[in-house]
């Protein structure tokens, strides 16, 4: 009898708090978005599942001694995002960017979304109840980088309490890029601009692809050491792939290693989706600011492309400016799709890959600035 009572008192039904139930619903919602809607399933499925597991009463899966507690160390120490960045680096082809380097400037312009939403976060402090510190604001702003591992890395350093909401916002909006970007792109361009065909790219030699990651690393070492963990691991992965001499390491970095780390990272991010940290008015602010960040980044990229078009002798289709937010490769695909709508012979995909990967570098640079100046 005692046993039965103690068993009843150990059931989930008996111990549930409203917050836990709500956060579990959030977890199920993320699973729904991942599975049914196809929103970034590689991340949102483990994150959603981690949210459910960590909100189970009594079980303590995210508390000291639980599985998610141990896995979370990989985020706290910055190990997981950096390993993912290495894998992403190994998957990235910088060819289109090297063929047309000035598209890098589009990747620079799109980072305005980061700093604009940082300001936005500070402005929201006017609302009673919201109190974002400069660190919080910086971590929120990085959502505008549209790059998951960078956002998680920065948030884990500057504002671990907001990590869950920031990661969820970053991946959700990345999945929403095909919905968020087109109206902005259409509003800022004329039909004629969208019709612009870009001239075919030159082929990029293997030597250039090998030298590039080293050059990128060197520049980052000289100018912005605080960005070198991110840029360094990215360059390492890229070099492993481009050099062609360590094919088996490159394959492992791109496949098994990144898959294992993705599972662990997703679950650990999910473990930060607890009621205490997530069910705050701050979260609404973060979600709103994240959407703005993406929109502003997109707009900045497009406007920058229009400005460059005025001064450049070779034409640039402004649509590819929107790809500068990163969100590889969705943003480049969106640019390609809109280009085809206006001109069925206009394949922008390769041209948009340049600003797209430049956006990854741009947000890593922005992350470095934030990590070194926001104390």
């Amino acid at each position, binding site marked *: 009898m005692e046993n039965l009572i103690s068993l009843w008192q150990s059931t989930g039904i008996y111990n549930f708090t409203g917050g836990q139930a709500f956060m579990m619903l959030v977890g199920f919602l993320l699973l729904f978005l991942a599975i049914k809607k196809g929103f970034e399933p590689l991340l949102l499925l483990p994150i959603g599942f981690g949210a459910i597991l960590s909100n189970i009463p009594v079980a303590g899966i995210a508390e000291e001694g639980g599985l998610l507690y141990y896995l979370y160390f990989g985020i706290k120490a910055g190990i997981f995002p950096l390993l993912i960045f290495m894998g992403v680096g190994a998957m990235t082809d910088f060819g289109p*960017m*090297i063929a047309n*380097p*000035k598209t*890098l*400037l589009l*990747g*620079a*312009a799109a*980072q*305005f979304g*980061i*700093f*604009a939403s*940082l*300001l936005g976060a*500070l*402005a929201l*402090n*006017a609302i009673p109840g919201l109190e974002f510190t*400069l660190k919080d*604001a*910086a971590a929120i702003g990085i959502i505008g980088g549209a790059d998951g591992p960078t956002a998680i890395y920065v948030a884990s350093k500057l504002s671990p309490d907001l990590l869950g909401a920031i990661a969820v916002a970053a991946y959700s909006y990345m999945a929403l890029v095909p919905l968020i970007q087109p109206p902005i792109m259409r509003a800022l361009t004329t039909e004629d601009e969208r019709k612009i065909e870009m001239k075919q790219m*030159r*082929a*990029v*030699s*293997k*030597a*250039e*692809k090998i*030298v*590039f990651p080293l*050059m*990128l690393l060197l*520049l*980052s070492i000289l*100018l*912005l050491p605080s960005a070198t963990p991110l840029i360094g691991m990215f360059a390492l992965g890229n070099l492993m792939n481009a050099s062609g001499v360590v094919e088996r390491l490159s394959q492992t970095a791109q496949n098994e290693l990144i898959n294992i780390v993705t599972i662990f990272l997703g679950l650990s991010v999910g473990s930060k989706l607890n009621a205490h940290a997530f069910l705050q008015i701050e979260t609404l602010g973060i979600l709103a600011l994240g959407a703005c960040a993406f929109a502003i980044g997109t707009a900045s990229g497009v406007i920058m492309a229009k400005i460059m078009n005025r001064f450049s002798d070779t034409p640039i289709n402004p649509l590819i400016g929107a790809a500068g937010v990163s969100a590889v490769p969705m943003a480049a695909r969106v640019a390609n799709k809109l280009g085809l709508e206006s001109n069925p012979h206009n394949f922008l995909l390769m041209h948009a890959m340049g600003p797209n990967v*430049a956006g990854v*570098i*741009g947000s890593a*640079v*922005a992350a470095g*600035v*934030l990590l070194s*100046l*926001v104390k």
Partner: protein
Amino acid sequence: MSELMGSGVELMFVGMGIVFLFLTMLVIAINLMSSLVQRFFPEAPATTLVVPVVTSTIDKQTVAAITAALHQYRNKQK
């Protein structure tokens, strides 16, 4: 609060400045590097792998054989 906004604005200008500075220098560096590489290591450009998509013209039996072989191979791998 106003001080905080001030820091934010400053951070925005400095940050965007650095981002543009960094990527502009990268543009210059790439241009320099490309011309150096093309002058001193004028190798043939890396051609991308072309995978022939000819499945439709191949009789069904061959495809079945391949499927079976792949399946066996895959099972052996595990």
